[in-house]
């Protein structure tokens, strides 16, 4: 099985973010491999271990994203592709998907795995766009997955429980944080990571000239939660709470 796992280097989501205009200031906060991507890497490694084949990690980002790539390689991925190009700075979801799809298409693939959304941009749109551009089905929000005889079966997480979704390979798969428990990189893996092949490509290498079609007009903090309503319980408290919940359409 040829598996490509899309990964992203993001500012450590556990530290307060800083803005530079309407964009994240990526210099201000320590960059890390998106914690959500570790589940994708783990899913790819598990499938390759069970079915044979190779895991390629794919990322688009500045040269510094090589560190996140090496983290994924130290977990056990076999090789990497890093698309790095000044012209791609500020790419939106569609431009990103075009680049990643073009990079994936260069080689035969059975499965493309991604997290459900990045910890920084959080659009959650890129995997679906990749599937569209590649012309393959997508199976998303997997909290459990199985590949058998060219068919991918997942439990797709929903509000109420899960749906069982099936599709033929090749396909695009997104995994939630419930899908597995990512392994720690081993010391041997860490020491081997720097010798694993990482192909570095520019947009031109992919025959692309893409530009963001969306611009972020403004960034505003989420409104602070307003004051709650305080009832003095004069014996009608329960009824008033029920009315309140009814008005809020909770019950």
């Amino acid at each position: 099985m040829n598996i490509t796992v899309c990964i992203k280097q993001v500012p450590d989501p556990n530290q307060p973010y800083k803005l530079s205009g309407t964009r994240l200031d990526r210099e201000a906060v320590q960059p890390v491999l998106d914690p959500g991507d570790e589940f994708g890497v783990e899913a790819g490694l598990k499938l390759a271990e069970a079915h044979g084949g190779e895991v390629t990690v794919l990322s688009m980002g500045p040269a510094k994203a090589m560190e996140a790539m090496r983290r994924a390689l130290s977990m056990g991925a076999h090789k990497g592709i890093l698309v790095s190009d000044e012209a791609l700075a500020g790419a939106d979801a569609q431009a990103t998907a075009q680049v990643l799809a073009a990079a994936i298409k260069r080689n035969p693939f059975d499965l493309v795995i991604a997290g459900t959304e990045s910890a920084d941009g959080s659009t959650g749109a890129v995997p679906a766009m990749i599937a569209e551009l590649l012309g393959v089905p997508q199976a998303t929000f997997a909290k459990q997955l199985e590949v058998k005889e060219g068919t991918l079966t997942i439990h797709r997480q929903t509000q109420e429980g899960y749906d069982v979704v099936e599709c033929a390979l090749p396909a695009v798969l997104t995994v939630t944080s419930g899908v597995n428990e990512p392994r720690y990189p081993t010391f041997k893996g860490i020491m081997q990571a720097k010798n694993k092949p990482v192909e570095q490509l520019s947009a031109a290498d992919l025959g692309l000239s893409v530009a963001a079609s969306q611009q972020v007009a403004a960034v505003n903090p989420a409104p602070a939660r307003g004051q709650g309503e305080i009832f003095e319980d004069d014996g009608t408290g329960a009824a008033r709470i029920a009315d309140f919940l009814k008005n809020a359409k909770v019950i």
Partner: protein
Amino acid sequence: MNSYENEARRSAPLVGERGERRTRGGRNLVGFPAVSTPTRNRADALDFLGVDALLSEEERMIRDTVRRFVRERVLPDAGGWFERGEFPRELVPELGKLGLLGMHIDGYGCAGASAVAYGLACMELEAGDTGVRSFVSVQGSLAMYSILRWGSEEHKREWLPPMAAGERIGCFGLTEPDSGSDPGSMRTTAKTSGGDWILDGTKMWITNGGIADVAVVWARAEDGIRGFLVPAGTPGFSARDIHGKMSLRASVTSELVFDGCRVPRDMMLPEARGLRGPLCCLDEARYGIAWGAAGAGRACYEAALAYAKERTQFGKPIASFQLTQRKLVEMLLATNRAALLALHVGRMKDEGRLAPEQVSLAKLANVRDALEVARSARSVLGANGISLEYPVIRHMNNLESVFTYEGTNEIHTLIIGQAITGLSAFQ
């Protein structure tokens, strides 16, 4: 070198898709620093001298991996293990999987990492708990290293791979009830009998003793001190765990008794003869301890700093009082010096130019400083300083063991004294 506490304070709960919390093994998942590069020219309270920048990317990745392992698998339970006097045996295969056991040994299933990488791992482990670091030191630097250095090819092939994987546990029997700093006075004997060896004697304060699958035992033979591999269950060999310890409580410490214990001839380590056999293994372990103590000290400093900034008395944080600031700064001096010293001897070791007396200096200085830091941190935390809710009293008590084992403070002083004067005060 960022702290656990600092990261814990900064971290907002990570929320995954549809609002569920991202967890690993039921614990919060915290971002993995791809690399920790300083981004500004201002001293960081947690890595004041920027020691981080002296590490290679690979060294930082190994350090970050152990740090994360400690944060997720050691720190949440360390207080409980200490209170219950319980060694977390379930961690052993995980330590093996990461590559922590015999990690600076090349081949035989070991990671083959550098001395600096091994040291960084010891530092992070001991910032978690000295008991866990002690397990790794005894398994890797004492038991496995003895077999690597002095064992036959068969010994190495049989024992090192399962020990590296954490499937087999080793211990190292040198100290006796009446023979501590003066190992040459050991009374355990090895006599030949019908092609076998017969071991008689008692070993004391043996880390991992009661859980070991194999003991490396040093005994007096006709031609000098010899080392033997004695598998658990060998008739005449028994281990009794020592209870009532107020230190190193998350660690098994045992007495080993050999009563007419018969071991086949080929279980003797062929290449070791004389005290140099065990002593060169001790040098390996002491090296790791110099790093480990720096980790324990750092953990205490970070706990004290965080506490002092949050604890309010007389209407302001106690960190704003001059007496507290002085304590914090003294701790900072000691912990940064310790990290630099550990890294310096680590680089020397990787270059193959580290002398035993230099290891003594690093062990003596870093353990003594860490103990001072722990005691000072204990006072900053006030009454909370004696509670296992905080890591400080645990480190403080553990460091009392580290102060004494693997060469007491006094013996290391005399080793250095002999090195600079050419005069031995103890031989």
